[in-house]
């Protein structure tokens, strides 16, 4: 279904030269991929049926009757997949289940970006960001982009690997049916940390890490998804917007309006996810930005010139009151199930001062990974049945970046930054 080509006058069967057009992500030498992909001057000397002028009787003849090279490549990509049932629909995207035409057992998720009414300047910035970064990042703990193609009326379709087991949020929330322990948390945290490390190593800030952006593959591997708010590290002195990261996972520097920041913003989010995995509830679920700051002050400590030199000069610095920084014992009481080493790592990821916060690379060297218990093997991790997961992937991928699950409609967290700011 829905696979009719942009121009109806070309039929795939009559188009032998399409067969060697390469995929978006060839593994062979890049020196030959386009060259071989464009085998238009057919070596066998056959005429080129697809390129002949179309008979005048077919549909709207306002379009050029033939497909050019780029269009042919697009058609070829599109034909590789069969679109199946809809998994979810949101304001930003519609997600379909799909499979490879050549091998129906290989399932994929097709994320069709909607044309957005309120954004009239062409391709949506979220889609541009997502495509830009997923094209570059290939890692076992980051969702893979398998292909991109356009369907009629120029909708972008991202073909993503299919992750049928839902997301971490689902496991965290289902306290009745899902039980997990320190070893499981360690395994999940390990995969999350490697994903974030890899982004940072490639100079990409994710800027929207949260449990429902951590999807789970059939084999239990956790994959970081939704790069709709991601950006490359800025050059020195170049402004960035502070209006990113879903509120509960947003670090204090962004709440205070910092215009220059680093990978430390993602590390804070990782810390809040770590705490949430242990508590099985969001650690600091603020109702609004002021409330969020208040919760940080109460749960971790009030940012002051003492614990964070320079913080009072941040553009939107306000604190509701003075709370002392929490001591190790306080954390041990709440988060003790991950052991002393685990608590040490948690404290370091939730350092108020971003310059003192542990980096993703340092996280990977932390002793917690080596202390008992060892992380669970991914195949043995707790999971939910795939029916629920399928729907969940639809929900997760269709959502707009930067949103808490239930506020897709109302709050405009990420949206505003698309205009005028960077």
């Amino acid at each position, binding site marked *: 279904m829905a696979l*009719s080509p942009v*121009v109806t006058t070309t039929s795939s069967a009559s188009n032998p030269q399409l067969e060697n057009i390469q995929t*978006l992500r060839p593994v062979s030498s*890049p020196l030959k991929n*386009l060259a071989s992909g464009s085998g238009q001057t057919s070596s066998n000397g056959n005429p080129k049926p697809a390129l002949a002028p179309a008979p005048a009787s077919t549909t709207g003849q306002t379009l050029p009757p033939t497909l050019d090279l780029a269009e042919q490549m*697009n058609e070829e990509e599109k034909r590789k997949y069969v679109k199946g049932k809809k998994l979810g629909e949101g304001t930003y995207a519609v997600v379909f289940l799909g499979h490879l035409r050549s091998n129906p057992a290989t399932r994929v998720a097709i994320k069709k970006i909607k044309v957005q009414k309120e954004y009239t300047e*062409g391709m949506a910035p979220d889609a541009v960001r997502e495509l830009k970064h997923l094209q570059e990042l290939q890692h076992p703990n980051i969702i893979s982009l398998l292909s991109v193609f356009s369907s009629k009326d120029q909708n972008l379709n991202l073909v993503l690997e299919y992750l049928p087991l839902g997301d971490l949020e689902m496991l965290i929330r289902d306290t009745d049916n899902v039980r997990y322990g320190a070893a499981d948390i360690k395994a999940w945290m390990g995969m999350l940390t490697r994903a974030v490390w890899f982004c940072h190593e490639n100079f990409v800030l994710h800027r929207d890490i949260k449990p429902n952006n951590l999807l789970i593959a059939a084999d239990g591997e956790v994959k970081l998804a939704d790069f709709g708010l991601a950006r490359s590290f800025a050059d020195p002195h170049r402004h960035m917007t502070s209006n990113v990261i879903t509120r509960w996972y947003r670090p204090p520097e962004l709440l205070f309006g910092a215009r220059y920041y680093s990978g430390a913003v993602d590390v804070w989010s990782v810390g809040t996810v770590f705490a949430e995995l242990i508590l099985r509830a969001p650690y600091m679920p603020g109702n609004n930005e002021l409330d969020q700051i208040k919760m940080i002050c109460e749960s971790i400590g009030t940012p002051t010139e003492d614990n964070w030199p320079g913080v009072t000069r941040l553009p939107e610095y306000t604190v509701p009151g003075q709370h002392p920084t929490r001591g190790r014992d306080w954390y041990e009481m709440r988060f003790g199930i991950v052991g002393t080493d685990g608590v040490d790592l948690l404290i370091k990821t939730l350092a108020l001062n971003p310059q003192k916060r542990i980096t993703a690379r340092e996280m990977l060297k932390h002793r917690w990974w080596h202390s008992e218990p060892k992380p669970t093997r991914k195949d043995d991790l707790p999971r939910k049945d795939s029916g629920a997961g399928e729907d969940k992937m639809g929900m997760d991928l269709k959502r707009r970046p930067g949103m808490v699950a239930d506020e897709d409609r109302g709050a405009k967290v990420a949206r505003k930054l698309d205009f005028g700011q960077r």
Partner: protein
Amino acid sequence: MATEDERYRQSSQFRLWSFSPTSLRELRVKTNDLAKQQISPRFAADAQPEFLTPAEETMLVQFFTTELIRAAQFCELPTEIRSTAAVFFRRFYITNSVMTYPPTELLKTSLFFGCKAEGYYIRLAKLAEMFPNTTSEQILAGEFLLCQGIRFAFDVRHPFRALEGAILELRKRLPEEEGRVAKAHAMARDILKFSPLLTDAYFHYTPSQIMMAALLMVDKELVDLLIPVAPPGDDGQHEASHAEMREKIFKTIESCRSMLEKEPPQRMKDHWETPELVKSMKPLRKKLQKCRDTDRADLVALQRARREQATTKVKKPTPQSDGAVFGDAVEARDPKRRKLEAANDLFGPAL
């Protein structure tokens, strides 16, 4: 994932947009051939136009790249964005012919999309105001085409950061020669802002190779200093392989340098902006006017037609029976068709 080289090989710039000189040449010839095959049927058999050669196409793309650079300077876009836009433009015309899609339009679209890809959100209307007789719709009309043409690879790796790194290193190594390093920095940066964009350097070399080649043009000794010799105390065999590697690196940088030297930054003033050059481009542009694909020259009309076709296709199942039976479906679409043809006529009849 261990080395930077391995990481670069995963980038879209390497995977999709790096070529050997031979395959790049072949691609351009194929693109040119394909365009000719497509356009030729639009002309009567006895009135075939003279088509552009691949070399002429390359020349025109180069000329319009200088126009793009000038436009970006006029709009005061940051260097990286200007370069990204130029690379998008050049990549687009590897698999698309200037005879098929008008470079004057794609140039503006490249600038707009270059901004977007770099996260620099300039208002479309503001950009349109910068150009004479240009509407927002015109700039946007080519956006999807461009994205498809650049294979949805929006991340371009530039040599500028490599240069900053090299300069930091040189400052540390040569604390006594601040002036010399500063001068090399400025000159190399000027080269990087221009020469790699006017040549095929981005298609053949890595950002650091391009950076080293630019430094080589301004101060060879500095490059000698940056590319390490074998560490002392190594055994002989190790030393030999290291020397061999060093030689290989230098050979590559040297060949990149000779490419960049064909278009040193002063060529902008001394060549591309001279009235003689602009005049000498006229016959070529005229030739282009005569052989271009008139069906695709007006991107706005083309875009509207695509949208329209998409919507009519969706509606089709219901009205089809009537239309098919009474044969009026085609007729009903006719006024629109005529309108579009008229729009095409504004750009002159097929010559």
